[in-house]
C-alpha cells in the first residue's frame, strides 16, 4: 500500500479544491489534492476527454478559460495531484484512505480541506426510472466532456440555471429541445436575476444561453414540472403539469410532449458524506441546498484541522467556490503557523470578496432549493429508491409502523441502501418522512458510512496469498 504525507490534504478537484490547493502551496504548505475525475476540474470546469475538441459551445468558452487557468495554476504550484482516486474513508488526525488505479493508498496530513461539491436532487414521478430519463449532470458530462448529445428530441425539466445551460449547449450541438419545464415562476426569476449582477460572468453567460434558446424557438413552461413519463411506441411522452410556488401540482392545462430523452434535475444538494463521516457538526438550511456543515467565517469546521469550501458547504456556484477554497487554504496555513502574515492578508481579502460574490450564488441556490410541497404528489406506487425498488407506499408503511426518522425508515424498507448509497433518493425520502413526522431537522439525515463510494472488491484486496491476510486472534471456543 502506498503512503503519502503532506501538510494539507485537499479533497475534490473542482474550483474550490483547485484554488485551495494552489493557494496552500503558494503559502508554503506541502499539498496533496485528491479527486476522482480523470483530470481536475470538478463539475463546472470538467476537462474535455482527451482527443475531444469543442465544435461550438455557447457557454463553455468563459468556463473553459477559467477552468484552464485554475488547472494551470494547480499544476504549476507544486501540489501533488492524485486524480482518479476516490477517498473512501477518513480517520481522525487525519489519515485518508484512497482507492484508485494503484489499489489502496493512504494519505496523512494534520489538515484537510473538504471541497466535495454537490449532486443533483431528483424528485420522482412515474416513469423517472426509465433509461431515457437522465440527470442534468449526466447530460452535462456528455455535452462538455464528450461533445455528444444525450438524444435527438429532448425535454428538459427542473430548477435553476442548469436547465438553461444544458438546453443551450444541446441546441449548439444540433439537438432539438422540445420543451423546457421550469419549476420556478417567471416572477421568482425576476426577483432573483438582479442579484446576479454581482457576477457579470454569470449574467453574460445566462444572457447567451437565453439568446440561444430563444433563437431556436424552444418553448419554456414556467411553474411546470414533469408529472409522468410514459412510453408511446419507441418514444416517450412527458406530461408537463403546472405547479404552484410550493412545488405542488395544481389544476390547469397540461402539455404532452413526445421525445426520445428527458433530462431532469430539481436543484443541487451539497455532498456532505465526507464531512459527516469525519464527524463534523451539521445544520439544515433549505435555502442553501439542505444539510450543510457548521463553519466559522474562515471555513473551519467543528473539528480541529478540518475546513470545507465550495458547493459541498451550501450551493454557491463556481466563482464563490474558488474564493472559499483560497480562504480555506489561507486559514489552514494560518492555523499551521506557516506564512502567517501573508495568509492573514489573503484570508482578509477573500472574506471581503466572498461577501459580495456570494450574493449571486445564493440567488441561484434559492432558485434550486427544495420547495415545501415538492414531494407531496409522488404517487404511492411510484419508485422512490431505484437501487432497491422501494415505493412511496413502502415508506408510508414504515411510518405507519412507528418509524420516526430517516435511518429507521432506511432499516425497515432498504430505501437508500443500494449502490448509489442514497444519493438519488435522500431528498425525496426525507421530504416524505418529514411531511408526516415533522421537520427535516427532526427526521435527521442518513448516517454516512465508509466506503463513501462503492469499491470494487478486486481493487480493494489486490493480489494476495492466504498469509497476507492480517488475521486477528481466533474467537474463543
Amino acid at each position: 500500500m502506498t503512503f503519502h504525507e503532506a501538510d494539507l490534504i485537499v479533497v475534490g478537484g473542482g474550483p474550490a479544491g483547485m484554488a485551495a490547493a494552489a493557494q496552500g502551496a503558494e503559502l508554503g504548505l506541502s499539498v496533496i489534492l485528491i479527486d476522482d475525475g480523470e483530470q481536475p476540474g470538478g463539475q463546472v470546469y470538467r476537462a474535455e476527454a482527451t482527443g475531444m475538441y469543442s465544435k461550438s459551445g455557447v457557454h463553455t468558452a468563459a468556463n473553459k478559460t477559467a477552468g484552464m487557468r485554475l488547472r494551470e495554476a494547480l499544476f504549476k504550484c507544486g501540489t501533488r495531484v492524485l486524480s482518479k482516486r476516490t477517498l473512501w474513508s477518513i480517520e481522525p488526525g487525519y489519515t485518508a484512505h484512497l482507492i484508485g488505479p494503484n489499489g489502496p493508498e493512504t494519505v496523512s496530513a494534520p489538515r484537510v480541506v473538504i471541497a466535495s461539491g454537490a449532486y443533483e436532487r431528483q424528485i420522482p414521478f412515474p416513469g423517472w426510472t426509465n433509461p431515457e430519463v437522465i440527470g442534468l449532470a449526466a447530460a452535462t458530462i456528455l455535452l462538455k466532456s464528450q461533445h455528444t448529445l444525450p438524444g435527438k428530441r429532448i425535454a428538459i425539466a427542473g430548477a435553476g440555471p442548469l436547465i438553461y445551460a444544458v438546453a443551450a449547449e444541446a441546441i449548439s450541438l444540433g439537438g432539438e429541445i422540445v420543451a423546457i419545464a421550469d419549476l420556478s415562476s417567471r416572477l421568482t426569476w425576476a426577483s432573483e436575476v438582479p442579484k446576479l449582477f454581482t457576477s457579470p460572468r454569470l449574467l453574460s453567460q445566462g444572457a447567451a444561453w437565453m439568446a440561444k434558446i430563444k433563437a431556436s424557438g424552444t418553448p419554456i413552461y414556467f411553474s411546470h414540472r414533469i408529472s409522468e413519463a410514459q412510453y408511446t411506441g419507441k418514444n416517450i411522452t412527458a406530461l408537463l403539469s403546472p405547479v404552484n410556488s410550493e412545488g405542488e401540482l395544481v389544476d390547469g392545462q397540461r402539455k404532452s410532449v413526445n421525445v426520445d430523452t428527458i433530462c431532469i434535475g430539481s436543484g443541487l444538494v451539497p455532498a456532505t458524506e465526507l464531512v459527516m463521516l469525519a464527524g463534523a457538526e451539521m445544520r439544515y438550511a433549505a435555502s442553501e441546498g439542505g444539510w450543510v456543515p457548521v463553519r466559522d467565517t474562515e471555513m473551519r469546521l467543528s473539528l480541529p484541522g478540518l475546513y470545507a469550501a465550495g458547493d459541498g458547504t451550501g450551493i454557491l456556484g463556481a466563482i464563490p467556490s474558488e474564493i472559499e477554497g483560497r480562504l480555506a487554504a489561507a486559514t489552514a496555513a494560518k492555523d499551521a503557523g506557516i506564512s502567517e502574515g501573508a495568509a492573514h492578508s489573503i484570508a482578509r481579502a477573500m472574506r471581503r470578496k466572498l461577501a459580495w460574490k456570494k450574493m449571486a450564488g445564493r440567488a441561484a441556490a434559492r432558485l434550486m432549493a427544495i420547495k415545501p410541497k415538492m414531494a407531496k404528489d409522488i404517487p404511492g406506487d411510484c419508485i422512490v429508491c431505484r437501487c432497491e425498488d422501494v415505493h412511496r407506499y413502502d415508506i408510508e408503511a414504515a411510518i405507519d409502523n412507528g418509524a420516526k426518522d430517516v435511518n429507521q425508515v432506511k432499516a425497515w424498507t432498504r430505501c437508500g441502501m443500494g449502490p448509489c448509497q442514497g444519493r438519488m433518493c435522500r431528498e425525496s425520502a426525507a421530504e416524505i418522512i418529514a411531511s408526516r413526522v415533522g421537520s427535516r431537522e427532526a427526521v435527521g439525515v442518513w448516517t454516512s458510512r465508509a466506503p463513501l463510494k462503492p469499491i470494487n472488491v478486486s481493487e480493494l484486496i489486490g493480489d494476495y496469498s492466504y498469509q497476507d491476510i492480517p488475521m486477528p486472534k481466533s474467537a474463543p471456543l
Partner: protein
Amino acid sequence: MGSTTALYLARGGMKVSLIDRGSIAREASGVNAGTLTMHMTRADLIPYAMRGWEMWRDADQWLGLKSGITTTDGLCLAFTEEEADMLRQRSEVRRAAGAPIRIIDRSEARRIEPSLTEKVRLAAHCPIDGHVSAYLTGMAYRRALISDGVNIMERAGVTGIDDLGYGYQINTLAGTIQARRIVLAGGAWLGQMLSWLGINIRIRSLVNQLIVTERLPVTMRTVITVASGLLSLKQFANGTTLIGGGWQGAGGPERNTMSIIPENMIGNTRLAAYAIPALKKTRVVRAWLGPEAETDDAMPIIGPVPGRPGAFVIGSVHSGYTSGPYMGRLMADFILGRESEHPLFPVDRLIKNTLEA
C-alpha cells in the same frame, strides 16, 4: 434480549414497560449480521443457540416476523493444516454439546456450496444454520410488544435507578417510573447499568465490523464460516452478500465514536473472497460497526442481581442474536417463577473474581 424478555413477561401476565434511550433494536440487535450459526457459537451455549434457532425458524408464530428468515446449511472451513486440526477439535466439542456438526472433505463441501474455493482443505457441515435480516427486527418486535400490551417508552434514556426497598424508581430523560421489578438489558452498556445498582464488574465493548456488497449474480446458498470464527458470510435473497466475523473497528460503544479500521476492512474482505472467489467481481457498498458486550470470561450474565430483590440482568451473550430470543424467554420464565429448561448464567461468578483480583 430486553424486547423478548418484555414480550414473554407480558404474555405471562405482568404489566410491563420497555424503556430504551433510543428506539428499540437499533443497537446490536438491529445492526448485527443476523447469522444463525452453531459453528460460531461458544460450545457451552450450543443448547441455547439451538433453541434460539428454532425460535427464529418459527418467528412468524410467536413474533409475527414473516420475511427475512432463511434456514440453510452452514459450512465451516479450514485452509491450512493447522486450521484443519482446529476445525476437527472444535467441531468435536460442539458436537458433544449437541450441535449436529460433521466433518466433510473438499469435494463434498463444494457439492453443497458450488461457489466455494477449491483451496479449502477441510470443512464441517451443520444442517441447522441460517440467517435473519436483522434490520427488520425492531419492526417485528414493536408490533408484537404493542399487541401484547407492553408500554414502549422510547427516547427515554435511563440516567439512574433508586432502590426503594419495595421496588425501584427508574429515572429517565423522559421522566421517572416505578416498578416492583426491573430487568437490565443494556447490551454494550450493561456495565454502566449494573453500576447503578452497586455492582461493578468489567464489561468491555467489542466493536464488530460488517461489510455489505452489491448484488452478486452467483448464488451462494450456505452460511460460510471458518475454524477460527473470523468469518461469517452469506448471501441474502436480494443478491447482496454480508461479510462479518468479529473483525474490529475503533472507538465505541456510542455510535458516533465508532470508526472503520481500513486494514481490518481489507483483511475481512480478503478472507471472504478467499473462500468465495466470485466476490472479487462485486463491489463493497457499505461497512458499519456495532457494539457488543463481553465479560471477562466471555460468557453471558443472565440471572438475578445479587442483593437486589426483584432486579435482574441479561446480556453479554456471544452470538447473542442466534440465542437471544431463547435467552429472553428463559429470563422471563425465571422471573415468572417457572422452571427453566437450561441453567441461567448468574453474575455472581464475576463479582467474586473481581474481589479476588
